[in-house]
Structure formats: structure tokens, C-alpha cells
């Protein structure tokens, strides 16, 4: 809400500048900013139009004569709303309007000595129909900029938090400012005469309306508002329409009470305030027809809905230039109903915005009376207030709330005596008295939604006391145990490992779209966002590969072809989540110079391939203390199954890695030598007390790993022997290693030497074996015997194995 500071000053005698007031408002909890209204434009003057005639040569142009009291101007205008006796703003020769200097200008054989201005040309509205017609009470021949307050008037804009509906009006702001600066607010009471000649026939048939007051005023003359009213509305960002409508808007801004004026003569019979019928239709003032539900509150006559309670009026009963008699409504509706209806129909009005945040049910009659007073003053020499009906079934009972000095101390941390507490609350117009251990307050209706408990009043005391001035202290925090930090540390160690190995960290959206899943031949994820932003953000991902492929594609767009990235993030399933690390690697990872005689040349040293990726993962697992993992061929739809592996630790799948399937690579347009991997780091439960250390997650194995204990350093030397086995092609290296390892206690280490193919079905696997006996030195003879026994055992285990050489 934006209002002129001068308007606020009508309600509180304050001599501070707008800037000082705004600073204090911010410090005490209302987000406020100050700005100057428009910019001073020289050479603008108010003039009265003396005559208007059609331009004899040019279509759609008019030649006007206008006077400033001394001088008469000839003005050519295209606006057709200018009439004889209109008072308008004239930009004289030399005035600067939106960067254009006004000059004498010829239209045919007639010269224009200036330009009549619209609100748009003044920079006060985004669009305007025609010239701005000032009300008849406007003085003629005065400096237009001064009259409007351009470049001079300060506007205060307030952005409230949802609990401070009370500050969404001039009066409420004045109350707040008065409390801050300890100045009493002033208010003039109304004095209107209400006849009993025509009591409106209104009945209340819903429990969602707490008060409904209707007043009938007759012989109202609909015309433009006074200059003062128009200017206040314009400065507050609203467009003047006609006196009655303007006055309802004016009171809404000033008092915070939404009002609605019906054309009484367009209402048919009895008026009912009730819940809508399901499917009931309503044509609103915004020109739209809405279909209503039984939760909506409506005002209806015998023909149907004439207003959507608290939100918007209806087209059929709207006030127009022919209106004579009006029914002025002031009501108080249930804020939850208003909110639901406003959200469902997507209509937000000044009125609904205020109802949702709560309005003052007690000052409703006074606010409405102010409107009546203004209508009588501005719209009716012959008007009379014919009658009123005020339905207020359950009058407001102020809640009593105690504030203990002890609570203030316990929460704010300083002693504030009860007398000071009472003083602060009374300044806020919350009637408060002291009692033995504190104070007791009667909460006024304008704060009834916000102030419901002792703590709420403690906050009021603190903010007016000035939280900022209160000195800080430092709490004594209990020493933390490592239990909760350890996953954090584990994740940091993981991140550091991959970064140190040259891989870059990325963070991508957890959202994914259907397209990428289709390309990867994957079934759609479990979790779908029902109100997603775009189709690419429709699901919560259940793997990281989809996200990383998109990162690769993004970089390819920038011709970045070598890429090594990882992300640590969650993936989502119906009943749980897990934290994974995903990696995507492609291209060169060490480039550099090779030396040859007389030649130094740039070359690729290392390129990501299956064994490099395997090595990376293997050393990460070793870092965690996991050496006993197994690999099995992966059947992931998007991987090349001959060059990819699922990783198992103690029988549980902890992740995978491998080369992208060439068909998928082609489809998503990435390189075919792209490697992708994912490792499951941690199980994330949505239940409160579920053991998160589940099998299949690396953090679990890291956490549960045994502490290694010291073994004596070997006293006797080891002996190396090279062995070559001839086997069928189906036998894997791992099998040989495993069986070798099991075959002798003396084997300390086995390393692969070479593999070569004897023919299509047979291959030779050569290994180098370290033997060591921890008790003695081994003799050649002993080793020969051991080898013999090993080969014998291997032949039993692996069909077709032969020792070569």
C-alpha cells in the first residue's frame, strides 16, 4: 500500500520527515520505503476551456480556446472528452513532457500553443483515455505541478507481513507512528443524521459474515470527485472513477474498511447475505462471469447474486452516471472463506487483500459513516440518509491477555518493569493495566487476529522498546557429540576426493522431464509434481545420470567436449530417498608434453576409459575402507552392457559405472565414449525413527568398518614367481585371482602380468605371485612344491586350466 505522507499527518501531529518516519517503521517491524511523487515539470498551468470546435481541415482534431484567467490559448487536441468549461492541465510552450519539449505546432492552417495533458503524459498512469479532466473546484491559472505536488509530495509505501492487516490503512499507520514517537493520534468523529424512512430489507443467512450494515442514501448526484479526493487516490496509485466509487476507495485506504455501493434501483426485492449455490453464476465488475461454489459468500437479490462478498461487486447493480439512490454496504466476512474464494477464482482486490488479513469489526460503523458524510458533502445537495440496518449478531468481546514481567525477561533477556510494559501497549491503543506480576490487556478488534497470546504482546513490547538497542550475549552451547557430524564429514571427504582427482562439482535441479527418461529407455520416476512449472520439471529424479547427461549437453552447446563432473544429491522414490554421488566422464583428463629427441610435442596422456573409471571408483572405495567389492555386468538400459558393471559390497548393490550405450548416446546427442556412474551414499528416511544405516549404502559400510589392528612387520623376505595359465576365454581374471588366493596361505600378492589370445577360445593369463612365509625364509624347493600344489587345486576348480611354460 502506498499513501501520501500528508494524508497520514491528518491523523497524527508529527513533525518528523517522511524519511525519519520510514526508518523507524522499518526498525519496529513494518517494511516501509519513501519516494517522491512524480517530478516537478515547469510550464504547466490549469486552464478552463472556453470553446471546442471541430478542425475544419483535419478529421478527429478539435480546436479549443482556453484561458488561464489572463491569457487565452488556442490548443489543438485529439481528445474528444474535452468540453466547454472543462478544467484541464495545459503544457505551455517550453514544457518538457516525457523528454519532448512543447513547441508551437501547426495543424493545417491552425496553430496549437501547447498541449492538454492526460494522466499518462504526466507519468501518473500507464494508460489514460483522453485528457485528464480536473474537477470544477480546481483553481484556474495556477502552476499545475505545484497543485499536484509533483516532485514535492512524499509517498510512503508499506509492505506488510500477513499478521499486520491493521497497518494497511492511513489510520492504522498513523496509530503505529503515534505509538513509535509517543504522540497521541487524532480523529474527528462523524455526525450524520440517519432517517428511519427506508430500512433496507437485508437478511443474513450465513455464519461466514460477522457483521453486515447497509445504508440507503437517496438523490445522489454522480459526478467526478473533488480535486482533493482525486489527488489522494492518484497518489495512492488508484484511478478516480466517480464520486461514489472514489469515496468507497478513499475510505478503504483511510480506514481499512472495504465498502461497496449498489445502485439501489437495480436491486430486485429482498437482499440476502448467504452462501452461494454450487454452480451459481455471477457477472462481476471486472467483466468476467464466475461459477460459484457453496463455500463462497454472496450478496443476492431476488434475481441472483449481486456481489461476491468481500471480493468484488456485480455488473448488474453497479453505480453509473444515471444512479440516483444507493445502498452502501460495510461488512465483515470470514477471512478464511474470502481467502479460499479469492484463490480459487484468482481474483485479488484491495478489498479481498484486506479481508484476508483481518479488518476491524468494531470501527465498521464509524468508517461507513465517514463515507456517508463524504457522499452527502460531495454528491448530494438533496441527499438524505434514508435508513440503516446493522446486523451484528455476536459483538466483539475483547480477549484479556496477561503479560508477566518474568516472561518478558525470559524471552527478551532484559528486565522491563510492568509500568513500562503497560505504557508501550497503551501507546499501541491496546488498553492495558498493571497487575501484581505484570500487566493485563484487553485486545482491541483491530489486532484480534494477531495478538492472541502472551508471547504476541511480548513481541509488541520488544519492538517498541527497540530490539536493536538491546545488547547481545552469547549462549553457552552444550558440547556437540560427533554422532550427527559424521555424515557431514563423510560427504565432505567424498567431495574432496573427487575434486582432488580432477572432477568438477555441479548442482542440478532435482526435477526431470519425461523426454530424457524416454531417451534413456527408463520407466518414469515414482514422484510426480502435480503443479509442476514446466514439463521438463515434472518429476523428481530417481537417478543422477539423467541430470548429468543434461549437464554434458549444456557444455557441448559451448563446445566443451572434455568433461569430468560429479554431483552429490538426492534421488527420490515412493517411500524413501537416497543421497548419491553421480559422475560423468568423457574425453581427456591429462594432457601434456612428451619429449623425444629434438622434439617436444603436446599430447593426450590419459583419456577416460573403463579401467580409469574403475580405478577412480576403486580408490574411492579403498579410501572408505571397502576393498571387498564385486563387479557384475550391468543391465542398465542406457549403458553398453559389455563395458559396464554393477558394484556389490557384501552382496548388496551400491552403485554402477560404465560406458553409455551407443544408441542412447546418438539419441541424446552426446559422445559415445561417455562414462557414467552412480554410488549410493546414504539412505534418507521420511520416518522419524528408522535406522538410516541400511545395507547397500557406502556411508553404512564406512561407519561400521572395523578399526584395523597392528600386524608384525614381516621378518623374512618374499619371493616372486611368474606363472602363466592357459584357460578358456570365458574364465575371468577375477576368477583366477580368487582361486589363486584361496589356494595357498603363502601367497601374499598377485598381480596381472599379461593376457594374450592363443586362439578364439583359449587365452593365456600370466601373473606374478609374491610368496612369503611369516615364520621362515622360503627355499626354491619349497616354492616349487607350493606351486605344484596350487596348480593342482586350480585345475580342479577351473575346467580346462593348464600351466604354461
Amino acid at each position, binding site marked *: 500500500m502506498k499513501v501520501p505522507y500528508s494524508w497520514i499527518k491528518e491523523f497524527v501531529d508529527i513533525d518528523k520527515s517522511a524519511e525519519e518516519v520510514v526508518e523507524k517503521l522499518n526498525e519496529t517491524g513494518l517494511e516501509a520505503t519513501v519516494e517522491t511523487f512524480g517530478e516537478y515539470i515547469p510550464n504547466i498551468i490549469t486552464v478552463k476551456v472556453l470553446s471546442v470546435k471541430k478542425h475544419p481541415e483535419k478529421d478527429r482534431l478539435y480546436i479549443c480556446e482556453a484561458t488561464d484567467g489572463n491569457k487565452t490559448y488556442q490548443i489543438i487536441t485529439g481528445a474528444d472528452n474535452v468540453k466547454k468549461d472543462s478544467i484541464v492541465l495545459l503544457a505551455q510552450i517550453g514544457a518538457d513532457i516525457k523528454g519532448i519539449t512543447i513547441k508551437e505546432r501547426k495543424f493545417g492552417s491552425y496553430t496549437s500553443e501547447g498541449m492538454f495533458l492526460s494522466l499518462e503524459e504526466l507519468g501518473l498512469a500507464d494508460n489514460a483515455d483522453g485528457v485528464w479532466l480536473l474537477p470544477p473546484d480546481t483553481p484556474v491559472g495556477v502552476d499545475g505541478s505545484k497543485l499536484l505536488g509533483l516532485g514535492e509530495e512524499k509517498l510512503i509505501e508499506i509492505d506488510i507481513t500477513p499478521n499486520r492487516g491493521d497497518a494497511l490503512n492511513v489510520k492504522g499507520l498513523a496509530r503505529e507512528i503515534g505509538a513509535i514517537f509517543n504522540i497521541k493520534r487524532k480523529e474527528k468523529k462523524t455526525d450524520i443524521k440517519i432517517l428511519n424512512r427506508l430500512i433496507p430489507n437485508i437478511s443474513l443467512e450465513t455464519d461466514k459474515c460477522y457483521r453486515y450494515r447497509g445504508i440507503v442514501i437517496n438523490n445522489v448526484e454522480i459526478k467526478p470527485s473533488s480535486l482533493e479526493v482525486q489527488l489522494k487516490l492518484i497518489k495512492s496509485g488508484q484511478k478516480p472513477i466517480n464520486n461514489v466509487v472514489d469515496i468507497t476507495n478513499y475510505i478503504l485506504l483511510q480506514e481499512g474498511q472495504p465498502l461497496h455501493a449498489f445502485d439501489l434501483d437495480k436491486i430486485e426485492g429482498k437482499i440476502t447475505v448467504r452462501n452461494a449455490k454450487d454452480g451459481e453464476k455471477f457477472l462481476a465488475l471486472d467483466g468476467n462471469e464466475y461459477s460459484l461454489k457453496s463455500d463462497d459468500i454472496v450478496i443476492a437479490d431476488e434475481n441472483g447474486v449481486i456481489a461476491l462478498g468481500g471480493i468484488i461487486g456485480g455488473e448488474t447493480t453497479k453505480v453509473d452516471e444515471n444512479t440516483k439512490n444507493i445502498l452502501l454496504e460495510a461488512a465483515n466476512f470470514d477471512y478464511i472463506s474470502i481467502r479460499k474464494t479469492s484463490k480459487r477464482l484468482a481474483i485479488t482486490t484491495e478489498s479481498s487483500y484486506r479481508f484476508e488479513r483481518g479488518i476491524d469489526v468494531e470501527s465498521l460503523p464509524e468508517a461507513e459513516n465517514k463515507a456517508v458524510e463524504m457522499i452527502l458533502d460531495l454528491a448530494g445537495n438533496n441527499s438524505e440518509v434514508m435508513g440503516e440496518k446493522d446486523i451484528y449478531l455476536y459483538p466483539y468481546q475483547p480477549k484479556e491477555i496477561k503479560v508477566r514481567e518474568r516472561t518478558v525477561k525470559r524471552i527478551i*533477556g532484559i528486565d522491563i518493569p510492568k509500568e513500562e510494559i503497560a505504557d508501550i501497549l497503551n501507546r499501541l491503543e491496546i488498553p492495558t493495566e498493571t497487575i501484581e506480576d505484570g500487566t493485563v490487556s484487553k485486545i482491541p478488534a483491530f489486532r484480534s487476529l494477531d495478538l492472541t497470546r502472551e508471547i504476541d504482546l511480548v513481541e509488541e513490547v520488544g519492538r517498541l522498546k527497540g530490539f536493536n538497542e538491546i545488547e547481545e550475549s552469547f549462549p553457552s552451547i552444550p558440547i556437540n557429540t560427533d554422532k550427527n557430524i559424521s555424515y557431514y564429514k563423510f560427504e565432505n571427504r567424498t567431495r574432496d576426493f573427487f575434486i582432488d582427482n580432477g572432477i568438477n562439482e*555441479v548442482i542440478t535441479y532435482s526435477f526431470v522431464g519425461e523426454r530424457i527418461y524416454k531417451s534413456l529407455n527408463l520407466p518414469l520416476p515414482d514422484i510426480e509434481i502435480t503443479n509442476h512449472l514446466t514439463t521438463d520439471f515434472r518429476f523428481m529424479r530417481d537417478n543422477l545420470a539423467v541430470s548429468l547427461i543434461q549437464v554434458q549437453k549444456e557444455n557441448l552447446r559451448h563446445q566443451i567436449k572434455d568433461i569430468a563432473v560429479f554431483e552429490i544429491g538426492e534421488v527420490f522414490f515412493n517411500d524413501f530417498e537416497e543421497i548419491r554421488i553421480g559422475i560423468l566422464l568423457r574425453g581427456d583428463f591429462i594432457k601434456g608434453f612428451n619429449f623425444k629427441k629434438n622434439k617436444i610435442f603436446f599430447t593426450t596422456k590419459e583419456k577416460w576409459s573403463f579401467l580409469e573409471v574403475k580405478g577412480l571408483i576403486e580408490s574411492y572405495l579403498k579410501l572408505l575402507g571397502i576393498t571387498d567389492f564385486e563387479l557384475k555386468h550391468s543391465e542398465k538400459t542406457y549403458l553398453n552392457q559389455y563395458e559396464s558393471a554393477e558394484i556389490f559390497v557384501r552382496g548388496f548393490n551400491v552403485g554402477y559405472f560404465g560406458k553409455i550405450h551407443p544408441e542412447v548416446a546418438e539419441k541424446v546427442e552426446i559422445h559415445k565414449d561417455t562414462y557414467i556412474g552412480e554410488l549410493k551414499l546414504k539412505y534418507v528416511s521420511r520416518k522419524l525413527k528408522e535406522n538410516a544405516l541400511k545395507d547397500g549404502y557406502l556411508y553404512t559400510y564406512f561407519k561400521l568398518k572395523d578399526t584395523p589392528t597392528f600386524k608384525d612387520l614381516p621378518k623374512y623376505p618374499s619371493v616372486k614367481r611368474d606363472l602363466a595359465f592357459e584357460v578358456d576365454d570365458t574364465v575371468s581374471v577375477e576368477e583366477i585371482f580368487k582361486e589363486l588366493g584361496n589356494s595357498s596361505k603363502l601367497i601374499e600378492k598377485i598381480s596381472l602380468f599379461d593376457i594374450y589370445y592363443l586362439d578364439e577360445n583359449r587365452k593365456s593369463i600370466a601373473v606374478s605371485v609374491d610368496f612369503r612365509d611369516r615364520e621362515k625364509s622360503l627355499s626354491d624347493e619349497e616354492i616349487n612344491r607350493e606351486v605344484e600344489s596350487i596348480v593342482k587345486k586350480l585345475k580342479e576348480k577351473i575346467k580346462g586350466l593348464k600351466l604354461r611354460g
Partner: protein
Amino acid sequence: MGLKEDLLKLKEEAKKLIEEAKDKNSLDKIKVKFLGKKGEIKQVLKSLGKLSPEERKDIGKVANRIKEEIEGLLKDKLAYIKRIELERELRENRIDITLPSHWIETGHQHLITKTLQEVVDIFISMGFSVAEGPEIEREDYNFDMLNIPKDHPARDMQDTFFINKDGYVLRTHTSPVQIRTMLTEKPPIAIVAPGRVYRKDMDPTHTPMFHQIEGLLVDRNITYRDLKGTLQKFLQEVFGKDTRIRLRPSYFPFTEPSFEVDISCSMCDGEGCRVCKGAGWLEILGSGMVDPNVFEAVGINPEEYSGFAFGLGVERIVMLKYRIPDIRLFYYGDMRFIKQF
């Protein structure tokens, strides 16, 4: 007479030759020439037989001394030549030390996790622990138990993503971790909870996913002053010792009183500039004293315990600190961006 002179002459000759020698090969030849079995010294000594025993003894001594001298000269010269040769060899293999290096280029950490770690580590050093919660969160933990009832305008402050799973939403803040912690642990509680959160919003300053860090301290006698002290210490760690802070009363449903916390603008030191839009202050986080309704929802007696909570947006801090103009840059995975930091 003359044997002694002959020997001395030989020594001078050898000395000269050794001085002139350029390599090991010449030295070997000199060795053979003078000290060999048929070498010149041996030749001289052949005529020794003609001399008296005294003379023989005398000459023998001279011959041995000369032999040793020549051997010594040969050894020194050999060592010298070896050094020279090594030096030449090393120089031949010299490298242009300004050639570009080659090694694995260290990866780059994402600014978000980097900053997140910095913040969490500060709180760990103060004694806080780290807590976690799922990103798909129970609606009641995300809202109701945090004193955000249905149909309250406060729910509008956070545009929620709903999912095909009843009673669950994408968490709109890290605050539900407070609820989870208080439901499972008894005070004293001192936690920070970093993580991703989701809101339906997308423009240069908002992305539908971003990161928050939640903090919660619950114990007997925790006051507003402790909140102010803790946040001041933390913000000075992050933004520098001279940073001033300002707490503006505000509204969050789960704290009462609530505060927006501002820091003095680090660009202009509070003078007002483009970064702080002339205000001299930058809004940095939200905080407050835990609302009694929240305590009641988790079964902690608000008459016995009090506490404070705060939540900060990591992206905002990173953008301020590193002057990043568009929040969306964080999530493209564009290496041209990632590798800048």
C-alpha cells in the same frame, strides 16, 4: 748420477700431461705410460742395480713418493673430469621450466557447497551439530506443526510444489528439520540443517530449487540476546569483523518475536550503493524466538524451555559475496562458470 733428476723430470712431465688431459681415456694412457709394469718409472728403476744399497734405498723412496704424487694427481683429475662430464650431461637434458605443466587439473567445488560448508563449520565450531531431513516432507512437518495452519495467508509466502503422494510436499524450507529434531531429541538441542528446498518460482533472483541452512538452539534461558549474539558472531565470521548487524522485527509463523536480519553493506560500508540499493543494509536471513505453538506441537514445555531459530538462503549469500548476477547460473553445470571459482 742423474737417476733422481730423471725421476723428477718424469714427475714434471706427468704433471704436465695430466694437466693437459681432457678425458678419462687420456688419463688411463698417462697411468700406463708412467705407472704401468713397463712404465717409465719402472724403466728408471731397472738401472737401480748398479747403485749402492744406501743410494738404492734413497732413490727407491723418491721413486715411491713420485709414484704416489702422480697417482694422486691422476685421481683428482679423474674426479674433475667426471664432474665436468656430469655437468655436460645434465645441461644437455635441461628443461625449459616455463613449459606448460601436465597433471590432473584439480576439480572445482561448487560455490554453493563451498559456502554451505563454511557456514556449517562456523556453527560446528560454536558447538552446533548437523541435522538432516528428507526433501519430500510431510505436510504437517512443513506447515502445521510450524504454526502455519491451512488457509493462513502465511502459506502464500511460500509457493508449494505438491506431489502425487498424499500428505507430502517438496519441503519449502529447512524448518521441518527443527520439528524432526525436536520430536526425537530432548533439549538442550543445538543443530544446523543445511539442504535443498523447493518453491514454485523462477526468475533471475529465484529458482524453483535453492539451498537453506536452518539453525535451532533450545535450552533453558535462551533469550533474544543470545540470538543476536550468535548471529552477530556468525555474520562477522562470514562477512568480516567490522560487519554490523541490524534485527528488524518481522513475521514468521514459527517464531515470535521474529526478525529479518540485515548486515551493513560490505560494498559501501553502510553508505548506500548499488548493491544495497542505497539502503546501506543487506537483508541476509530470517530468525526469531521459537513460537510456543511449535514447542507445544513437539511436546516441549514452552514455560520451561525457550530457543531461537534462524534460516538463511545460501544462494543469496553466495551472490552477494561473489557478485553473481543471475541465480540460474548455479544450476546449468556450465564449466565456464564452475571453473571460475
